[in-house]
């Protein structure tokens, strides 16, 4: 397809990028990956199919898309850092006039780390574990600048200081494992920037990081971009990450650029049906409305072979015969916005207000090949969980009660540990909460806050070292073997990684039947009948019983995970990050399914997640955890609208939301610093080391829970944000 290249991007500010130069021009790039299918047959994946992008010097471009959309391939192809089997089949990648797609390896080596720097997703695995960070940061200088070791070290230290690594001189001799995740990513950024490149490619730079750390890293990248005047390609699956950090966004789907526009325009008036559907599937959009999430049915294309027509047509509610047979040409949105282009025959209306009001209609279309969506009945009962904003959510009786639960782990020491470094890790420090029958209690917190430990104790997989876990009034810790087995019928777990939590050598039928077999429920025929029932409930075909877990996609596996959890008809399901590994469109399917099943069966969920938007959408009541303690609990709507704890507020202000308010300034102060080690928690209030309001009192006395604002809204803080809450 001969592309009409989009015109030079609009200047971000008056002085930023005038019409003149193009730093990077990707022109009609085609890329294939040779590999093998499940049966070992050779197959070629057409990962990129005519991708064209332009980037001006100093400009920031966001590449968004779900997994497999080709966003990472596009970014990595610039440097020729493609995985084995991947090959550019046609097209050009012009960096300042040099075609990198055709350039020999030595030329590419001269570009890598020199005029183009890269930051990858996982800062731990991306750094060499056996090399000091000083040596790793200095390396590009030795390669490209021809400087001596001393000079390289000096410059490396300077760069580490620039990226905000404390005491860079001492840290030069540290190894990656001695740093926190955020610090590691700073090191990775320093490594990419040490030669002051003109272009920085950041491939999901914050996906492996916590909300607050993510914010700090993104701020840092933005700041350094200004300072060094470099261009940025920010690759992310997360619309919230992209929203505030780039000038222009390209949305990718199925190896093609679906839509391209200046960031504000794309977020307020997307035209391509895929972009629109993606936004509608965001839990932020449905939070508090009581409406089910709009979902995109089916799965992204596998890109084996080149399908005719629009790549999104099989999943699109607006697709017509034309879409399935002809490839939509790239067109310009309207006369006054030449830099907004999309490839769609039936674009959404340009009117932004219509978009905001338009309810989820996309999920009406059910493709035959995909798992049917369980949210088809979603429209009938929007009020069922919307009453959460009331004083106490559903008023069912208490099902699960955690009473001042504590958990300490003894640190296992290695042969080279010094004795004074050995102390127990306080994972959960006195958490009390209740989950009522039929409600969803959401637990939010960053990694290491103890939320998963809490979940395991709630199920009875781990005994608390203090306090009590009561289920239906019965102490779980005191149960004998038989009692514990009976208890397992009533409480089940759902994991983040369903694949890792299923025996890869067992067929799905056996996996789902196992809980029934263990509990001795029914004979074989009855069990198999129950398995078929479960598959119906989670929207998978009966044929699934003969297949193995690896034959399913991430979303389908999560359906299996839910089916297994429901096999024994429990009254409580503890779901630990059940949608964190999923793409937005699939995440919406699972969230809707969980909600529908809850309504049908009167289930309770203890829903654990780091994702504020997801918790806000699903939970009736929430608890916010920080470093082992529950700092705030209350009705979800109340907590999110009027947070009382400084941590909750910081978290809310730090989280990158994909909902772009027109010109809404970002007030408040995002959380600075890092979570201290649970082996050495701060005295008094555990949050005080990062709290702007902390005083002497906070260091000496742990705060007791109180309800200063509304009944049922508890906060553990000496200085709750009552005034602010009222004013806000």
């Amino acid at each position: 397809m001969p592309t009409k290249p989009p015109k030079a991007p609009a200047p971000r500010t008056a002085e930023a990028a005038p019409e003149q130069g193009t730093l990077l021009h990707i022109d009609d790039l085609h890329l294939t990956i040779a590999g093998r299918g499940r049966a070992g047959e050779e197959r070629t994946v057409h990962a990129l199919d005519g991708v064209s992008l332009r980037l001006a010097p100093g400009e920031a471009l966001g590449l968004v898309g779900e997994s497999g959309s080709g966003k990472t391939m596009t970014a990595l192809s610039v440097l020729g850092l493609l995985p084995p089997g991947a090959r550019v089949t046609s097209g050009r990648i012009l960096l300042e006039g040099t075609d990198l797609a055709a350039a020999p390896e030595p030329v590419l080596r001269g570009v890598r780390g020199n005029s183009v720097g890269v930051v990858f997703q996982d800062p731990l695995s991306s750094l060499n574990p056996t090399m000091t960070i000083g040596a790793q940061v200095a390396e590009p200088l030795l390669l490209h600048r021809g400087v001596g070791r001393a000079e390289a070290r000096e410059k490396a230290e300077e760069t580490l200081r620039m990226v905000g690594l404390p005491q860079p001189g001492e840290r030069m001799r540290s190894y990656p494992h001695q740093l926190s995740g955020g610090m590691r990513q700073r090191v990775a950024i320093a490594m990419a920037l040490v030669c002051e490149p003109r272009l920085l490619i950041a491939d999901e730079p914050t996906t492996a990081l916590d909300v607050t750390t993510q914010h700090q890293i993104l701020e840092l990248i933005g700041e350094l971009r200004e300072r060094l005047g470099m261009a940025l390609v920010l690759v992310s699956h997360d619309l919230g990450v992209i929203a505030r950090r780039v000038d222009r966004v390209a949305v990718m789907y199925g190896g093609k650029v679906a839509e391209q526009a200046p960031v504000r325009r794309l977020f307020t008036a997307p035209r391509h049906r895929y972009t629109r559907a993606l936004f509608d599937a965001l839990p932020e959009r449905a939070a508090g409305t009581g409406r089910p999430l709009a979902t995109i049915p089916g799965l992204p294309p596998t890109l084996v072979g080149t399908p005719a027509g629009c790549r999104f047509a099989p999943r699109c509610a607006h697709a017509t015969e034309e879409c399935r047979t002809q490839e939509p040409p790239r067109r310009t949105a309207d006369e006054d916005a030449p830099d907004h282009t999309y490839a769609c025959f039936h674009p959404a209306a340009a009117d932004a207000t219509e978009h905001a009001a338009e309810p989820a209609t996309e999920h009406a279309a059910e493709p035959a090949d995909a798992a049917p969506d369980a949210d088809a009945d979603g429209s009938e009962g929007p009020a069922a969980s919307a009453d959460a904003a009331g004083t106490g959510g559903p008023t069912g009786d208490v099902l699960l009660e955690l009473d001042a639960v504590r958990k300490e782990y003894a640190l296992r020491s290695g042969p080279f540990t010094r004795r004074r470094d050995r102390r127990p890790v306080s994972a959960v420090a006195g958490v009390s909460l209740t989950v009522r029958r039929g409600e969803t209690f959401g637990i939010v917190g960053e990694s290491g806050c103890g939320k998963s430990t809490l979940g395991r104790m709630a199920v009875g997989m781990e005994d608390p070292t203090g306090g009590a876990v009561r289920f239906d009034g019965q102490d779980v810790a005191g149960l004998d073997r038989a009692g514990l087995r009976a208890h397992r019928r009533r409480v089940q777990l759902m994991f983040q990684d369903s694949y890792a939590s299923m025996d890869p050598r067992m067929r799905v039928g056996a996996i789902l039947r196992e809980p029934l077999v263990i509990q001795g429920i029914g004979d074989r025929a009855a069990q198999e009948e129950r398995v078929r029932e479960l598959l119906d409930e989670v929207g998978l075909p009966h044929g699934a019983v003969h297949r193995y877990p690896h034959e399913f996609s991430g979303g389908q596996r999560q359906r299996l995970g839910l089916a297994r959890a429901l096999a024994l008809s429990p009254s409580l399901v503890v779901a630990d990050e059940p949608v964190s590994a999923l793409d937005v469109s699939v995440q919406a399917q699972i969230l809707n399914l969980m909600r529908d099943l809850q309504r049908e069966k009167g289930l309770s969920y203890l829903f654990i997640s780091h994702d504020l938007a997801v918790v806000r959408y699903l939970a009736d009541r929430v608890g916010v955890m920080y470093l082992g303690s529950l700092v705030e609990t209350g009705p979800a709507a109340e907590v999110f609208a009027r947070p009382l704890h400084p941590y909750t507020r910081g978290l809310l202000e730090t989280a990158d939301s994909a909902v772009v308010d027109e010109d809404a300034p970002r007030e408040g102060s995002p959380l600075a610093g890092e979570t201290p080690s649970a082996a050495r928690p701060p005295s008094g209030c555990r949050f005080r080391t990062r709290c702007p309001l902390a005083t002497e009192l906070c260091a000496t006395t742990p705060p007791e829970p109180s309800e200063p604002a509304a009944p049922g809204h508890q906060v553990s803080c000496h200085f709750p944000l009552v005034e602010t809450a009222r004013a806000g």
Partner: protein
Amino acid sequence: MIRFLLKRTGQALVVLFLVSLIVFVLLHQLPGGPARAILGPKATPEAIAHFNHLQGYDRSLPVQYGMYLKRLVTGDLGESYKLNQPVLTLLGERLPKTLLLTGLSVVLAALLAVPLGILQAVRRGRASDYVLTGAAFVAYATPVFFLGLVLILGFAQQWPLFPAEAPQSETVGGILAEPAGLVLPVVTMALGIIAMFSRYMRSAVLDNLGEDYVRTARSKGQSQVRVMARHVLRNALIPLASLLGLYLPTLFSGALVVESMFNYPGMGLLFWNAAQSNDFPVLLGVTLVVGVATVLGSLLTDIAYAVLDPRIRSVS
């Protein structure tokens, strides 16, 4: 670190005690016993009883073991019945030679196996990889004694390039003075080690090449060779180092076969001869040395880990 070493030394002593106990008991279950072995098949029962009384063999086993331990603590490993020399002297004479043989073999093996493994990993799936992998399998599957025989037939008889017998000098220096005689024993021992090490090296390098940090290193603009030398090599050597330590006891048993085949005057040959003549004190002495080597090997593994992998050093 010092605490760790002390702890490991303590563990080692317990292991050695158990080893000596097991060996002691097993040896005393052998038919005939040392008296018959030493006095010959025609010895009268009276002579045997007299010998057993002199050696304390008529006492109960625990008492005998107690006596043995008592002497052991003072460094007295007993005296060889056959060679009429203190076992300690014999070991002092033979051990360095075995160390020389195994040391040379391991060094040769490491020098060849590491580059071979890297080569196979880099050429993965190509002809050279298949040929080398196939050769390694053959070498690994061939018993040492057979390999030695083939080498002797080939390079000592068909093409007499090297002597079929190892140097018989009394000292290590004397052995080193005849390097030609060392070639066949060392190569025989080294081949199997090369085969195994290169397999491990190949997979360790392949594992590391798939790691993200290699992509990062490439993204800095480093050449393939530099990435290999500066980044992959050290990380790939970590599993190999542990393998070497745990392989040490196996090396000693390999030495036993090679030494007896090439008549190399090392500890293996000493053990072989002692085993044939029920020379208990020697057998016990050699077994203890192998026990020490085993414990030492696993200790070396731990230390090598810590040296190569900074994550182990500061494990919490």
